[in-house]
């Protein structure tokens, strides 16, 4: 049975060329950033002078990409299982950032925490609370708004999802704040040096966290009983039901995991950028959706990959002095991908799930 093989070797599906292609793409991205920094007319940098800046921008791209990847996973999981573009997902990310803002300010933190033990404790608490709350919110939304429309014409759940997105956004707008909120950046502004490479602690933390969550998700989906239920529901809901899978629980679980990941991304948003605002979810959601489509919708590995690609696109466009066009670049990308390769980068391998 193929699923048993896949369960024993969860990464077997990745072809051996993939790491080489990825490394090649990263090198090219690095040089594009480097040339962009060198070409910046306001700085007049030498080649050697440009390297630290290019390095910082490269790491910035990976960090932003990690945030998009975390959001994109929720889009792709929900689309994979009930074929719904969950427009409210970006707002879940926004609400997650507000939950962590609320928690940290209530606990009385306003800046960096220097005591490492306390810092770790507070971080664990912030992520646990935000992920749990947003996971529950996701399940409640699915239960109240989407479940009854599972067999309705396709337009109905889409319109409902837009409605839910506006409800969440405007609850925050009316009840919390109608302008930008400063969130406590509790991780110290330390820079770590590994030989020639310097990385900010917050960047390293974000990347490690995101990759850790992705690996955990991958193992969960490929190795556990519930993960198998999710995969089978995505492939054929009725057949899965006949095999004894509880469809409603499985779909609720999918919403829980996807929303919890968006909640984690929301915490990172607050920690990394130090701000949040009620309408942050709309743009972030669109970009993360683009990431999900880029990777091949329904495919979790693809969504993670797409998130990093979007992160690089955004940073490259801002390094090249066109930051205000980055949205247009990302959506132009979305249209091009949908028109010329609707299955996405990795869509071929898991095409039947999309």
């Amino acid at each position, binding site marked *: 049975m193929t699923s048993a093989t896949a369960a024993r070797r969860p990464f077997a599906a990745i072809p051996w060329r993939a790491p080489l292609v990825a490394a090649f793409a990263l090198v090219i991205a690095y040089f594009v950033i480097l040339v962009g920094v060198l070409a910046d007319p306001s700085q007049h940098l030498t080649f050697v002078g440009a390297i630290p800046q290019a390095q910082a921008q490269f790491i910035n791209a990976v960090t932003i990409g990690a945030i998009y990847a975390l959001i994109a996973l929720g889009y792709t999981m929900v689309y994979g299982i009930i074929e719904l573009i969950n427009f409210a997902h970006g707002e879940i990310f926004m609400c997650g950032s507000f939950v962590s803002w609320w928690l940290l300010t209530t606990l009385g933190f306003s800046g960096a925490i220097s005591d490492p033990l306390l810092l770790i404790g507070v971080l664990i608490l912030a992520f646990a609370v935000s992920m749990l709350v947003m996971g529950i919110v996701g399940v409640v939304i699915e239960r109240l708004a989407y479940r009854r429309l599972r067999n309705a014409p396709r337009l109905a759940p889409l319109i409902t999802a837009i409605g839910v997105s506006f409800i969440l956004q405007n609850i925050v*707008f009316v009840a919390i704040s109608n302008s930008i909120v400063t969130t406590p950046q509790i991780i110290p502004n330390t820079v770590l040096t590994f030989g020639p490479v310097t990385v900010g602690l917050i960047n390293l933390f974000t990347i490690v966290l995101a990759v850790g969550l992705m690996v955990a998700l991958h193992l969960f989906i490929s190795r556990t009983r519930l993960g198998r239920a999710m995969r089978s529901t995505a492939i054929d809901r009725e057949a899965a039901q006949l095999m004894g899978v509880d469809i409603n629980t499985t779909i609720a679980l999918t919403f829980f995991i996807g929303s919890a990941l968006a909640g984690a991304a929301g915490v990172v948003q607050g920690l990394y950028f130090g701000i949040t605002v009620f309408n942050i979810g709309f743009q972030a959601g669109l970009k993360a959706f683009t990431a999900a489509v880029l990777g091949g919708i329904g495919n979790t590995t693809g969504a993670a990959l797409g998130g990093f690609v979007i992160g690089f696109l955004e940073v490259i466009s801002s390094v090249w002095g066109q930051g205000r066009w980055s*949205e247009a670049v990302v959506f132009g990308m979305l249209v091009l991908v949908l028109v010329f390769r609707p299955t996405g980068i990795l869509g071929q391998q898991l095409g039947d799930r999309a």
Partner: protein
Amino acid sequence: MTIVLALAITAVALPLIVLLPPLNGFGTQRDFVGGFADAGVFVLLAIGLNVVVGFAGLLDLGYAAFFAIGAYTYAYGASPFSGLDIPFWPMLLVGALVAAMFGVLLGAPTLRLRGDYLAIVTLGFGEIVPVVFLNADTYTRGTNGITGLSQPSLYGIFGINGFGFTDPWPYFLTVLIVIAVAFSFLYRLQDSRVGRAWVAIREDELAAASMGINTITTKLLAFSIGASTSGLAGVFYASKLSIVSPDQFGFTVSFTVLAMVVLGGMGNIWGAAAGAFIVYEIQSQGLKQLGAFVQSLHVPTLALGPVSVNLGAIDFINFQYLLYGLALVLMMLLRPEGLFPSRRRRSELHATPDDAADSADVLVQA
């Protein structure tokens, strides 16, 4: 004929309603007539979006983009910024055509995609268009927008020259005429061969294709007709305000128009128009008056532990998008055919007894 009659009645009755004693407190008749002219813009938008969402079943979330394109077309055609001063009436057609052209440009590559992908592509398009108008500031004056647009004029016919800023009546009557033309066109289209093809595609694209309907061109037609109506509305809106700027055409406009169509009844032109009028009046008058009303009650501040609620200080206008969101979700769950449904939509969206038994089973299992 019914349309002409209905609009003639509207033209007379609407301003007269304002003279009723309870409405007098809301403002003068002049305020109301100006407000009705603005409501007319949204009625135009709603009947146009109704073609795309209601007839053809395509979810267009970037509808405000075509509105913006129509408005900027007028701004280039008749403003000191461009140096041109083309009269308003031909510009109505030009605006509609330019918007339709962009509709085709966007639709041609994307309409072969699945419905929900179309929703996200149009959403992206709706985001890009204001960004382009904002960032290409050499050509659009960026965030300041283009100002001093020419007013419509009748060149002395009926003794009217420029419409001016003070008298709302010419705008009100103009928008009624524009609505009448667009309305009768779309109304006739509904039962034509094309209209039936749209309904067929909406209900089952595969079956429609196998019946010999060219689904791509038929959908493209719906998309561009919707876009051109939006362009018409844009030209009128720009001429009335005499200014266009990128922040007038954000996603909230598309969302508001969608809420109007869904509330009124997807697929029913009368319903979409009524929904647009009602929602616009609630938004522009109702919420403001509700705030004034609650304030006049002098409700004492309620203190519930740490939370204190001062009803008098609540600005109800802030709640409008929350209300639209709730309205969309509740309508989809409870009455998907809208408040004033078309007969066909009602039977389509309300399950037959057999289907109802099935879905009841699902609910019991849930």
